[in-house]
Structures are given as C-alpha cells and as structure tokens.
C-alpha cells in the first residue's frame, strides 16, 4: 500500500478561512449532501442512505471502529414513538483531542452528517453530548446549530421534504465514563453516569427506553463526504479495510504536536518523523501509544511497517482506538508512564463493577510502590494477576482499558519494571 500523503488535501477540515460560519460553509459546498438526500431528482430513501454509508465502511472514530452504516441498520422499524441519535463529543481519553477541531473549525460538516444520519434512521431528536471542559466549543456549537435552524436545515419540514428533526447540545460534567455510550445515555437522562448492562443494546432500548444510535462526532462528519462523492470514492481513501480520512492527534515527545488530517493506513513512522517533525533532540522513540491511552503501547523499536488502520495495528499488538498517538522518548521510565495512566483509570472508574472499582486502585497503588523503589519481583506477577481479574469481567470496557496498558507495558517493557524491583533480588551467595 502506498499512500501519497504528501499531496493529500484535507477534506474533513479543509483549510478554508471562517469555515465555521454557515455562509462560508454553504459557499464551499456545504449542505449540498443534505439537499441531495432530501430534495430534487437525487432524493434518497432512508434505506438508500443507510446502504450507501454501510457500503462506504466508515469505521467508528470513537474507539471501537464499528461500521457506522451497519450500526444504523440495527435500528428497528419506526413505530411512531420517539427515536434518538446521540452524538458523542465527550472526548476524554488521554491523548485524544480531535473532535474539538471539528467543533472549532468545521461544525457544520458534523451537523449536516448528523441530520443525514437522523433522516436515514427516521430520528426526530439529536443530542450532542460535549465534554464540559469544552465550554467555548459548546457555545460555538450552539451558534452553529441556531444558524442551521435559521437556514431551515434543522427544525420542521426541512427543505420542504416533510422530514423534521431537532438538535440539542448537552454539557458533560467532567466524567470520562460518560463517553461510554450507555453511560452517556444515563447522563443525558439526568441520571448518574453508570454504564448499562448489555443486552438490551441501544438500538433496542436506548434513551428513555427508545431506539437510539450513538456515534462519534468525527464519524458523523464523514457522512456528507460519502453522500457527495459516493461510497466507492470514500473506500478509495487510505486503507482498504478501514478507509477514509482520519484526524490524527499526535502528542508527547514530538517536535510538532497537533491534530493532522491524513488518510487511514499511514505509516506510524511517517506520522512521527515526518508529519510531527520527529522526536526533540533526536532522541529515540521508546514507546508509542497509537490510539488513546487505553490502547496497548508499542515498542519504539517495533514500529517498522506498522500502519494506522485496524488490521495493521492488530497485527502489531495494539488498536486504532481514536487515532490519538502519544510518543514517548527514551528518557521516560515506563513504570512512571504506566503508573500515570493507571492513575487516570483509577480516578475515572465509575465504581459500579467490583473488578474495575477496586482493581484500578490496586493497579495504581502497586505501580506506585514500584515507582517509589519499594517494588518486589512478586509485584510484577501480582500486576498481571490483577489485570486478569479485571479483563472481560465488567459491564463496560473501562476495566479492559485500564488493564491493557499495564499488561502490555509489562510484556513489552519488562526491563523497566524489573529494574525498579531489584531490591528483592538477592545474588546467590
């Protein structure tokens, strides 16, 4: 696979001044996809939209990488009662900061995508759940939404098609767990943000017990591109099994951290060395977390040929996640790094499930013990065991997200841990 990334022109967030303003957006082809779907000769039925999006294989950008159109097709037939679309802009995973760029620079692409999604699933109400710390972006979104209402893209009888839909923003209150889709629904309902037991799945019983679909902001921003240019065109971008443009959020030890839009399937090394300008001081890359803090860290010396798509990363022993890439240089002790991540998950566990509630704390405390130099070799085994007690045994995936970074850091950077646990290793007399 060869990606001509050097000549790639951004399409999710094109470099157009004031694109967040609705007039500018319209002038540059904005809301064309919505018009195509709802009016004129090109008018599409909801099923046609679902099929087109399914065919395009937009894989969810919220972390799990599930085909968006396929998810939409799980919605039951309308029965006259309410149905909901919840747009996930909670964006709280460490190393992930890409949806904010859409709120800031191209909010209407997301709004347009969400309206098309609502039409495809015959939904009348859209909630946009945005993390509370994004105060400014929430205000910006409110302006964008009210402009879309004024132009008749939202509200009653949109473009005289007979289709109506409303959109509301909802502010999070500082909980990472509220980004988990079922917790997000509880939070939207005004309840404590506890993830729900599945089944039932959101398409069967979601918000207020009604059919609901949850999509990430970036996922939905891709929808107008698919409608305007067709699934075939979309599938031609980037990796075959994981196509489309992606907002790569690169952070850590690089010279130019930031959010960069490129096709999927980019070589990790290209992203680090070329796009982000390499590691400061020419230091070696020790580790890379490729898709947000919950994805297993890769060793810096095993990055050759690793590409940013689901298949390639699975092969390399990690995941695409949110494409939030964190680069760690050789000066970092992975014990410290892992401890810091563990601290986050300990702080953010909602506390419902025993393995997560108490396991996250035990991980952090044990790592802290090692970090302080009090570690013993048996603590390494204990860490593995705690991970085993947590993985796959909880209501939501946070426990896995907390365990994996530890398990894989131990697997891949064991020397760092052993070095700190030396105290209990005695030389044979």
């Amino acid at each position: 696979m060869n990606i001509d990334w050097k000549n790639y022109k951004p399409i999710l967030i094109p470099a157009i001044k004031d694109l967040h303003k609705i007039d500018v957006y319209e002038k540059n082809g904005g809301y064309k996809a919505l018009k195509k779907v709802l009016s004129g000769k090109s008018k599409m039925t909801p099923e046609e939209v679902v099929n087109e999006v399914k065919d395009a294989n937009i894989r969810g950008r919220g972390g799990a990488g599930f085909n968006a159109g396929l998810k939409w097709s799980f919605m039951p037939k309308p029965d006259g009662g309410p149905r909901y679309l919840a747009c996930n802009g909670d964006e709280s995973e460490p190393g992930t900061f890409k949806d904010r760029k859409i709120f800031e620079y191209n909010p209407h692409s997301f709004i347009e995508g969400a309206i098309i999604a609502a039409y495809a699933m015959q939904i009348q109400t859209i909630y946009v759940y945005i993390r509370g710390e994004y105060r400014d972006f929430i205000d910006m979104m409110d302006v964008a939404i009210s402009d879309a209402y004024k132009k008749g893209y939202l509200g009653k009888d949109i473009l005289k098609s007979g289709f109506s839909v409303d959109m509301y923003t909802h502010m999070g209150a500082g909980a990472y767990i509220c980004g988990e889709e079922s917790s997000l629904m509880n939070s939207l309902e005004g309840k404590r943000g506890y993830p729900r037991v599945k089944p039932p799945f959101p398409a069967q019983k979601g918000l207020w017990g009604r059919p609901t679909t949850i999509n990430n902001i970036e996922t939905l921003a891709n929808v107008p591109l698919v409608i305007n240019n067709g699934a075939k065109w979309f599938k031609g971008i980037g990796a075959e099994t994981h196509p489309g443009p992606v907002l790569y959020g690169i952070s850590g030890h690089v010279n130019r951290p930031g959010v960069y839009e490129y096709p999927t399937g980019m070589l990790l090394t290209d992203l680090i060395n070329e796009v982000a300008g390499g590691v400061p001081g020419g230091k070696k890359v020790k580790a890379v977390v490729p898709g947000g803090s919950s994805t297993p860290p890769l060793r810096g010396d095993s990055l050759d040929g690793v590409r940013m798509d689901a298949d390639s990363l699975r092969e390399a022993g990690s995941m695409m996640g949110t494409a939030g890439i964190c680069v760690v240089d050789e000066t970092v002790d992975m014990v410290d790094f892992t401890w810091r991540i563990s601290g986050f998950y300990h702080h953010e566990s909602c506390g419902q499930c025993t393995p997560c509630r108490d396991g996250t704390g035990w991980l952090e405390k044990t790592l802290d013990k090692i970090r302080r130099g009090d570690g013993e070799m048996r603590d390494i085994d204990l860490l593995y065991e705690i991970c085993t007690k947590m993985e796959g045994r909880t209501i939501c995936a946070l426990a896995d997200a907390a365990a994996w970074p530890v398990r894989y850091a131990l697997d891949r950077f064991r020397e760092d841990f052993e070095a700190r646990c030396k105290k209990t290793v005695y030389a044979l007399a």
Partner: protein
Amino acid sequence: MAEIIIDDKKFEFEEVGKVLQFILDNGMDLPFFCYHPSLSIPANCRQCFIEAGQMVKDRESGEYELDEDGNPVIRWFPKLMTACSLDMADGMVIKTHVTSEKVKVAQADTLELILINHPLDCPICDQAGECPLQIQTYKYGPEGSRFEHKKVHKPKRIQLGPRVILDAERCINCTRCVRFTDEVSKTHQLSIVSRGDKNYPITAEGQVFDDPYSLNTVDICPVGALTSADFRFKARVWEMNQTPSIDVTNGKGVNIDLWTRDNLVMRITPRFNKEVNDHWMPDIGREAYRLFNENRVSKPIIKLDGDQVRSSWNNAFMTVSEKISSVKSDEILLIGSPYASLEDNYAFQNWFNRLGVSDVYFTPHIEKGYGDDLLLVDDHAPNTNGCKALGFKEVDAKKMAKLLSDESYKAVFILGDDLLSRVDIDDSALESKYLVSFATNHTETTKKSDLVIPITSSAEHIGSYINVDERIQRTIPAKETMYTNRKLDLEMSMGRLDHFGTKFDNWVSDKNRVDCIPAWEVLVRIGNEMNLEFNFASPQDVLEDITDKIPALENVSYDRMDKENGIALKLSAPKSVTT
C-alpha cells in the same frame, strides 16, 4: 418442555427467568450480592459468574449436533457471564463453581477485590453473623489478602436519617439501597456519590433519609454499611431467636420475624410473603417491638377505694364471677377487639353466649388517609375482618360512646383494645358501671378500669388474624410468659442461650417474663370458677370450634396457614354465627 443443563444435570423449565434465580430456586448455591429478586438487575457486583453456552442445533433436523464422541456440540460465550442478568434459554448449558475451575477462580477473585478496601471490622459490626459478605467469603473467598496498601477511607457513622446510620467504608456499592428508594419506596432519597473506589450512597445535601420504609435498606444491605440507629450494638445475631409472626400494628398483616433474646423482643424484620408484603415492611411496624417489652400489664390490677392495686389471679377470677352473678345478662355490655386474635374474640363471644349475652360490639380503628400505596392501610388494627367474620356488631366511635353511657348496662367487658383512647366519653358516664378490661399494655382504658386482666400479646401466644385483604395468618409464641417454657412448648424457637443458659446466667433471667395468660385461657379459668361448660385446652381447640361453625373459615388450620403462608378467605360468603 425447554431444557437447561446446569453442572451436568438436566432441568426442565416453562417460564424463562434469570439463570441465578433458577439456580437458587432449585436448591443450588451461587454467591451473589447486588441481585435482589424484587429489584431491578444492575449486575454490578460481578460475583455470580458462571460459564454459559448453547447446544448447537442442526438447522434441518432440529436435533442437537453431536461431536465424534457423541457429546452435544456447545457454543460457549467467550466471557464469563453474570447469572443474575442472563436469561435462560432452551438448550443452554451452565457451569458453576461446581464444575468449572475458571468460575471458581473468578468468584474468589471478585471477593478478593471486594475485600481489599473493606475495613474487616466484623468483630464490632452489627451485620456479623448474618452478613452475606462474610458468608460468601467463607464459602468462596480466597485464603487471605495480598493487598498491602492503605485502604480507601470514607465517611463513617453518618446519621443518614432518624433510623439509619451509614458506614461508607463497609459499603460494597451494590446499589441495593439506592434501587430500593428508587423502585419500591419511590422517595429517591439515596444516590451514589463520587466515583470509583471512593463512592458511597448518601442523600442529597441537606436532605434527611426519612423515608417511611428506610429500614428495609438495612435489611437488604449485604454488609454492615447501613445499620439501624435503634438496634445497633444491642444484640448479636447469634444470641437471638427468630420467630415467624405477623405485624399487629396495621391491618395489612405484614409477615415478620420477631427476634428475641432473654424474653425481650430486640427487633422486628420483614418475612417474605409474595401475597402480602413481598420482602418489605414499614418502619413504623418495627418500632412495635417496644410494645412487647415495655409498659406491660403484669399480674391483675383491681380498683380498691379508687386506687388501682395489684391483685392475685384467684382474687381477680373471683371478682369477675361475683360481678357477673350480680347482674342480669342484658346488663352486660361486651366489646370485642380488632386488635385481639380470632381465637380470643371467639372465646370471648362464646363464653358470654353461654351466659345468655349474645351481642358483641366492636369499633374499628380506622384513620382515613393514614395508609399509603405500599404497605400501610388506613386500618390500624390487625383483625377487623376477624371481628366481622364472627358477626360482631360494628359501631363507630360515636355510637360506641352512646353504648358506654347507656344507663342500662351495669358491667362492661373490653377485650384487648385501648378503646377509650379513641372513643370520646366522659369519665362520669362510666362511673355507674363495673369496667373489666383484658389488656396487654397499660393504656387509657386500663387506667379507667375497675379490673384489669393481663393477657398475652401476639409475641406470646398462638393467634390468628384476618387482614384487610381477608387473609388469615397466625402468630407463634416468641417470648415466654411466667407460665410458658421454651423447652416444653415445641413450637417455640430455641436459641443457643436457651439451650445452654442457666438460671444464674443473666441472659436467661426471669425478670423479663410477663405475668399474663391468653384471654381464652382466662375465660376457661373463670368458667371453672363458675362451673361453666367451657373446656378449650388450646388455641387449636378454639380454632377448630370456629372452623366448624363458620363456613367461610372451613378447612382453615394452623398447618395450612404455615404451609401456604396464610390463607385467602372469602368472607363475603353469608355469615351465620350460631354458637
């Protein structure tokens, strides 16, 4: 019929329920904490792990596919499943800790995790002895703990409300208490606050947990995080005897257990009855334990020159028989009681019938608007329907006042009821009458009585009560009186102390025995004095006489009440009482 295989044993089932409930219903064991049959299922404790799979069916033949060895092909769920939230299905295969090492390890893992932040203060915890966490840890837990860090500290001794105290460190976050206030009592007063291992349930700031059903959360809390402000530190569970009984402070007839130690009722907890109260009871019913211990009438009381003084039983019996002989039968006013048992009321009616007094009156104790839509009804008394079934004449408080002031009555007999506290009547109107009351506690009525006969309470006798829904249920003695003995009365429960305590042991002292006799027996004894043919030997005798005579109560027996958890009657059937 649909089939499910659990630990290699085949079971048939009709209704699709949850796997955990099915396992429990079929006498097998599985550890669990958050699940409660009468609440929603959050599956959060992750204790009830099992392996689950599905036998694969051949699409064409509809038969189960077999492997080379002739065993059914099973498609296993990739992860361990929580039995509490898993729906049963035809052809499902389940492995519990009995047959799966993986399950056994996972159950021990969860317990180890629960315990790392648990204070382990069992020696001073009220829950010890009836603590699911303690029990499950003994059965399924790890040997010890490998946690060597500081435990999380949380608020302790928090008075959530007038009746409930929280120790957040003991909380295992099962959310049962929260779900109870959300789903059953619907006050929504409790919520979990904070996150992760720091979270615990509490009320909103400034709010008091005064839910009228708050103490149910203490019952269902699987640890000692919620304890009863009144009961805590009063008794250890293993020191008490547990006796099934009926709440006699409300017409609903909530099924309860009386917990006694040294002949004092220490606490009252609800007993499951799907038809009456499910697993719950109102807080107010629990406070009734004091009625059994305090302010009791012990030994008869007689008025001498205007003063009430203690009397011997013989003297009391003689006084009654003399009094009765000195008046005509139409000068006697009989007042039965919705608070007394069916047996006592019937004996009362039957005894006086033999003297030619046929009418028994009673005044229900109904307070409009007192009830709620859960377990409290407007009727304060446990046996209003019993009085009706016996054909007693129902009169309201005004009419009752009139009857009591009627000059033609010279003697008034009041059975087990503080009638005068709800009937407005001048003391002077009573002056010309001789007032005899049969009572358990000192009340307004006993104060005004010329003779008070102490009778047993529902904690001391066998008695049946017909609740507002026409359900007949009975009590079993939980406390000894001066004249009963646990070791002789085979119905009474025996505790460790009853077995091993001695007279000199201050746990088994005589001082808490009340000097009282069941009302029916009092009447037998006075009858003897008067050579009356009235020879009941037990409450069972009385009940048999009742069931012979009252068609609506045909076939009712203690045995049936016990086996069927009470019997639903149809009292609307024509009443004909001829004794």
